């Protein structure tokens, strides 16, 4: 049971949601946007999250969009992960999110909620980092469109009251070869030890990683090393590991040495799959 109560709002437009946030914030209600709600509910039960009001965004058409125009794919933040898997407009995204939690939980977890959440892993962001996607964000000053690789620095850097509405991905990226590899300590569901998603754009391999440090990231250092065609696979991977400049997690899921060992093997698989 969540040990406190909150107000619940169910707006039907982006403007209404943003306006509600402003008003509730002004009234000292500590509002939160509520998408799948799985983090708010599970953390709320443990008193790790406290909201005075939640604003459910699942009835906002823009947040439920899953559509193409000539250039781009638009994915609304409130789409459940299984909706994305089943409609499959973006195969790398489908593959990556299909490994999050388990199938029933993915009927509730949303892509935007995963990206905006606070857990380390947030694996749904990896494909958007790899494809230089844009994010559409709404705030009291209106809508803005920002490259995800600018606004996602360890977390999505939203201003107070801003709502993530959609991710916008250029269609050209949707056809590129990719791999998404999730390694867990055990079992076939739940949180990763390491997840590596990679995309080959032309001859260049791009890499994004979750589980290595306490935030998911596009690993540009690793990309530089992996794309050194003058070196053998072994040398590229050694260089890639040496060029890492993040603090590697060392916890009950796995020691930092073990994580590096798993990453090394996973990078071998990436080179093997994407043909260096």
């Amino acid at each position: 049971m969540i040990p406190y109560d909150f107000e619940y709002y169910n707006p039907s437009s982006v403007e209404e949601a943003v306006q509600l946030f402003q008003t509730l914030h002004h009234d000292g209600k500590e509002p939160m946007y509520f998408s799948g709600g799985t983090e708010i509910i599970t953390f709320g039960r443990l008193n790790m999250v406290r909201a005075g009001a939640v604003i459910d965004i699942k009835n906002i058409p823009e947040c439920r969009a899953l559509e193409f125009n000539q250039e781009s794919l638009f994915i609304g933040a409130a789409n459940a992960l299984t909706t994305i898997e089943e409609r499959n407009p973006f195969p790398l995204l489908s593959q990556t999110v299909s490994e999050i939690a388990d199938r029933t939980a993915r009927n509730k977890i949303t892509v935007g909620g995963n990206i905006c959440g606070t857990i380390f892993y947030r694996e749904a962001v990896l494909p958007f980092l790899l494809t230089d996607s844009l994010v559409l964000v709404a705030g009291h000053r209106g809508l803005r469109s920002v490259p995800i690789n600018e606004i996602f620095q360890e977390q999505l850097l939203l201003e107070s009251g801003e709502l993530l509405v959609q991710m916008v991905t250029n269609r050209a990226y949707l056809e590129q070869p990719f791999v998404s590899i999730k390694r867990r300590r055990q079992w076939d569901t739940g949180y990763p030890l390491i997840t590596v998603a990679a995309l080959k754009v032309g001859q260049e391999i791009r890499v994004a990683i979750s589980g290595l440090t306490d935030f998911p990231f596009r690993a540009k250092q690793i990309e530089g090393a992996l794309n050194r065609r003058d070196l053998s696979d072994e040398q590229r991977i050694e260089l890639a590991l040496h060029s890492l400049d993040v603090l590697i997690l060392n916890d009950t899921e796995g020691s930092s040495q073990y994580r590096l060992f798993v990453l090394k093997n996973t990078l071998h698989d990436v080179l093997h799959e994407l043909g260096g």
Partner: protein
Amino acid sequence: MTFRNADVLLDVLRYQLGLTGAKPGCLNGDCGACTVNIDGAAQKSCLMLAVEAIGKEILTIEGLNAPIQGVFVDQFAFQCGYCTSGFIMNAHSLIETKKNPSDEEITAWLESNICRCTGYMEIEKAVKSVIHLPKGP
């Protein structure tokens, strides 16, 4: 009926409506014992606010009358039974959603539920035996 906005569906079903078929297990989205069907989709009722379910069709094990229930008995697919209603509601949703699921799909769906005392083999056998039952006209 009244409930708090912060009440999860599982608690409202059990403590307000007396429908105790959906079980509290982990209360954290991990075990699947609390699974019910919302507009035909399996959902963990500990991960959903009751207020989110307003206007939706909620099916719990109490309202189900489907062959999957009988085959769980025939195939010895439970021991203590604590996980059973969750498994059945999830399997029912699978059978209703996918007419001919592959082995991989069956495994992917059933991974949402945990059983601590019987074998997964019997559960899988039970689910497959319903999928392969002759369909009505």
